[in-house]
């Protein structure tokens, strides 16, 4: 095992980090698609978001399998798995929100703000990818983590404005109100989960310094 590890020069570990990077690139792609779909009210593009979530699932499974086949020190494995699972939660939230968007029309007074939230979510996902790259090179992540926290705070502020505006919109029945509420809740929760993922990256970074 020792010689295998020495001569492979961390091949398993490289496979894991490549897959994790692919997972984050996919997240950026999904966030971008979601923002465009919301902007254009494109239901077909929302279907793509739902399909891409399945790809994300399969990458998550592959990463976790590789980790438990012996990649990385056991000391680090739980944090790496947790990070991948948190990123997968973002995919789940995006899928759920996309499903709500397909079944309801976003009211005009909320559209611009919701699109801005989706754009900030996309920016956060890009920052998370950049943070991951920095972690691989063992750079300091504090500035990137701070940027993510600032984005999250912005979205939090916008969330209260959207909720205030949403209260003024008349709803025809219970279900249309419920779906709109869940859509807003899903859209504004994505940033919280990305922030959690960023915190996990920092834990991994510190523990391997």
């Amino acid at each position, binding site marked *: *095992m020792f010689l295998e590890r020495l001569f492979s020069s961390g091949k398993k570990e490289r496979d894991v980090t490549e897959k994790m990077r692919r997972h984050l690139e996919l997240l950026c792609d999904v966030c971008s698609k979601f923002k465009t779909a919301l902007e254009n009210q494109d239901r077909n593009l929302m279907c793509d978001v739902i399909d891409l979530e399945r790809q994300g699932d399969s990458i998550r499974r592959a990463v976790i399998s590789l980790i438990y086949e012996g990649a990385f*020190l056991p*000391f680090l494995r739980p944090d790496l798995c947790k990070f991948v699972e948190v990123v997968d939660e973002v995919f789940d939230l995006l899928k759920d929100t996309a499903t709500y968007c397909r079944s309801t029309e976003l009211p005009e007074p909320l559209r611009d703000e919701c699109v801005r939230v989706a754009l900030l979510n996309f920016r956060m996902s890009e920052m998370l990818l950049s943070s991951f790259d920095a972690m691989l090179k063992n750079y300091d992540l504090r500035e990137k983590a701070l940027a993510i926290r600032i984005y999250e705070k912005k979205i939090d502020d916008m969330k209260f404005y959207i909720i205030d505006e949403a209260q003024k919109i008349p709803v025809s029945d219970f279900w249309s109100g419920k779906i709109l509420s869940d859509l807003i809740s899903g859209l504004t929760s994505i940033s919280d989960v990305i922030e959690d993922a960023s915190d996990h990256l920092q834990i991994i970074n510190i523990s391997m310094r």
Partner: protein
Amino acid sequence: MWMLLSGLLLGWSLGANHTANVFGTGVATGTVSYRAAILLTAVFVALGAFLEGPKCMSTVGALSRLTAMDAFHCALAAGIMMSLLTFLSFPGSASQAIVGAVIGAGILSGTADFSKLYKVVVCWVFTPFLSILASFTFYRLFRYVLDMIDASLTQRNLIYSVGTILIGCYGAYCLGANNVANVTGVYVGSGVLSPFAASLIGGFSIAIGVLTYSKKVMMTVGKGIAPLDPFSALVAVFAGAFTMHVFTQVGVPVSSSQAAVGAVVGVGIVGDIQTVSIRMLTKIVVGWVSAPAFAALLTCLFIKLDRMGGFAAFFEIFR
């Protein structure tokens, strides 16, 4: 030759008890599997004993003028003491147990040389301090080197996993080189064995202890003392091994447990982390104090029993 049996018992218990100081943190943090750890330790302990073991051999035997039978009693008392500590999962000190036993035998025969004990005790006192200093220095040095290399996450992972194994092997080598004198040093002092034969037999018995009964203490040391990160674990093992290697050159067998705990404390100081649990430290300190005292008492008891015709009559059965 039956008189070597007690030395073999001591070697076995030392191997079972002290592997923890070498690979305990590595196994507890999952860097090395238990199986790989004991195999590597057994090989390198025997190698260390064979190559550098004779350096410390004369020190133990010179503390008192021992007869062959006294040597048997001393090793038996220290062996029983160490086996008891192993059974109770106390990381005890074989050096202190055997020195306690030799001094006990010397007091009874009136040949105890306290002027030589002085050198040994000074080395014992300096062991944890040198270990703290070594781990403090190596922590800073290795950190600087790692930062200079600017290694990526996967490279660091490789450095830590390979480094823990290599340093563990060095630790096992130093354990064998320094502590084999505890096992068979009394036989050299009493003229039963030559230093070379004593190193060979001692190294072999320690290796058997490592292979057969080291898991329990390894887990106690690895998980009980400090929840270390891979880098700190690597530095702690290296500093502990380095300390033992220094005292091997001085010719005094010291406690690998003291060296290991000192190294963990040093890592805690430089890393500004809480590394040692008070409960575990108390357990260790109780072991340090009680091992020489009880070993001395046991030796006196065995010698008295033997003078009443106990052991010799018992072993006559096997002749």
